[in-house]
């Protein structure tokens, strides 16, 4: 493993540690008395005491923090206050929807963005480029949840091709399950794809102005071959950086989109947890989302090493 990745891995662990502390402080220290927050201000003192016992709130913050993190590491996520079931069960069930949704939209984003961005750059300042750039400008400007509503209007209300929301579960078969994820995935992907397409295009254009591209052209390599053979790999570095950030945005976006389509995913679980003030659930879902985002960024760093040989020189 290269030193670069070793450093990045240390950062990953550090970030997760820091994240867990922040989440803990925000959810368990800042509110003063979590029991009061959960039960509301007109709770009986007796009820509060019972809940404090139950949640171990009488222990010092240190102990509670270690208890929580230790639990996370051994797969014990605690018990949901509102649902009275282990948090992990709730999360596990919802992940079956959110993870496919996130990956389908990310794949869609990457596909659309790369195709359109590279096409636009290759046809710089021509009609196709101008059209793609204008469309992407609009794409960036629309809120994804509004786009989702428009999709519902068109495909569910007007055309009646799909239902306006809901998820039949994977048990209902692959096709119906996937069909119910199509519109949500498109509405999540479209905005991110618009952003990424613009970044891809400007990155490709930037690399096309580099000296080594001129060298390749001077060798007699055609424009198209230069684009595929020399430009793309160099242009991917900023693109995958942005893709890493976008994955975080997509995960956050699922919270909103699952609401629009009434999908029983992690985002909706979180949303419900907030309404029910289920701190135990919120704490763990947020932590899980953070783990996703941070891990994706680590994977992005690993991709850098694959793409850019300059990062692999120093081996441990």
């Amino acid at each position, binding site marked *: 493993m290269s030193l670069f990745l070793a450093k990045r891995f240390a950062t990953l662990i550090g970030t997760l540690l820091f994240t867990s502390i922040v989440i803990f402080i925000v*959810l368990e220290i800042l509110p003063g008395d979590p029991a009061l927050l959960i039960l509301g201000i007109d709770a009986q003192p007796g009820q509060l005491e019972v809940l404090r016992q139950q949640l171990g709130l009488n222990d010092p913050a240190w102990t509670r923090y270690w208890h929580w993190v230790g639990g996370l590491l051994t797969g014990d996520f605690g018990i949901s206050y509102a649902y009275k079931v282990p948090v992990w069960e709730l999360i596990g069930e919802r992940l079956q929807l959110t993870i496919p949704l996130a990956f389908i939209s990310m794949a869609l984003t990457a596909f659309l963005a790369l195709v359109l961005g590279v096409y636009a750059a290759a046809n710089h300042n021509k009609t196709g480029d101008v059209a793609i750039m204008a469309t992407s*400008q609009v794409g960036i400007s629309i809120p994804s949840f509004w786009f989702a509503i428009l999709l519902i209007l068109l495909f569910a209300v007007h055309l009646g091709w799909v239902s306006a929301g809901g998820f039949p579960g994977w048990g209902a078969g692959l096709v119906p399950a996937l069909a119910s994820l199509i519109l949500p995935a498109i509405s999540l992907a479209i905005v991110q794809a618009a952003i990424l397409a613009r970044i891809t295009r400007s990155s490709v254009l930037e690399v096309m102005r580099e000296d080594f591209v001129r060298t390749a052209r001077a060798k007699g390599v055609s424009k198209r071959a230069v684009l595929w053979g020399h430009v793309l790999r160099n242009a991917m570095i900023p693109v995958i950086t942005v893709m890493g950030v976008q994955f975080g945005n997509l995960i956050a976006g699922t919270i909103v989109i699952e609401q629009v389509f009434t999908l029983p995913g992690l985002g909706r679980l979180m949303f419900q947890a907030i309404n029910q003030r289920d701190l135990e659930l919120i704490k763990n879902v947020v932590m899980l989302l953070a783990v996703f985002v941070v891990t994706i960024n680590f994977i992005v760093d690993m991709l850098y090493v694959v793409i850019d040989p300059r990062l692999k020189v120093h081996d441990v």
Partner: protein
Amino acid sequence: MSDWLARAVRHRSFMIGGILTFVLLALAFVSLFWTPNNPYRLNIRMRLKPPSLDYLLGTDAFGRDVVSQLMVGAQNSIVVGVIAVAIGLSLGVSLGLIGAARRGWLEELIMRFSDFTLAFPAVLSAILLTAIFGPGSLNSIVAIGIYNIPVFARLSRAAGNSIWARDFVTASRACGKGAFRITIEHVLPNIVPIIVVQATIQFAIAILAEAALSYLGLGTQPPTPSWGRMLNEAQTHVFTTPSLAIYPGLAIAFSVLGLNLLGDGLRDLIDPKLARQR
């Protein structure tokens, strides 16, 4: 200067963006004094009415005038955007400039902190805040503002570093000037243009994020009209009165489009080198 103006007038996206942004600001300003109807007045008899002379875009499920709500909603978007950008700008730029001036472990710390904050998209941190402090526009402003801090911190650190590497800064050090004076006299003036550009773009992003939060019911609370919540309410009636779901979305889209175009245009006008690649 006149040269700059002449180029600005000829610049298509700058002009379109400028006009859209101006319309947004103007509508919000007018709504402070006058709206066609009272956007707060509930009138069950007038619910879900189609457009008419009195109600240019019709009424919502509570009989409130859509146009008036949209106008007042603009105020809301602008206030959230301006404050959130101001929080991010002031703290982020300060941190970035300190990082660029000091280098070493302090810079590293600031950047790691930025990484961490960036891993939390605005919607996620807003949800966390509302979980504790309850929903409300103040919380969404704070959440979006916090998300803006690392954006500006990274930008101004990177730009600041490139200014610090320039010879005129070395010359200034040779004149006995300290890091603070150099930052104020040389670094800041040279990075203001890109910060302004970024601010317009973050403003647009703030409007989008606020709309999403209000849509979820975590942002601006009733009865204050907001575009996001109008969409939420409209969704219930999407089968009967789909138009209600169109207008607020268009309002958001045009505002954001305007700010984005304005930002792109400014970038082109400020840096002609970048302009050619676009």
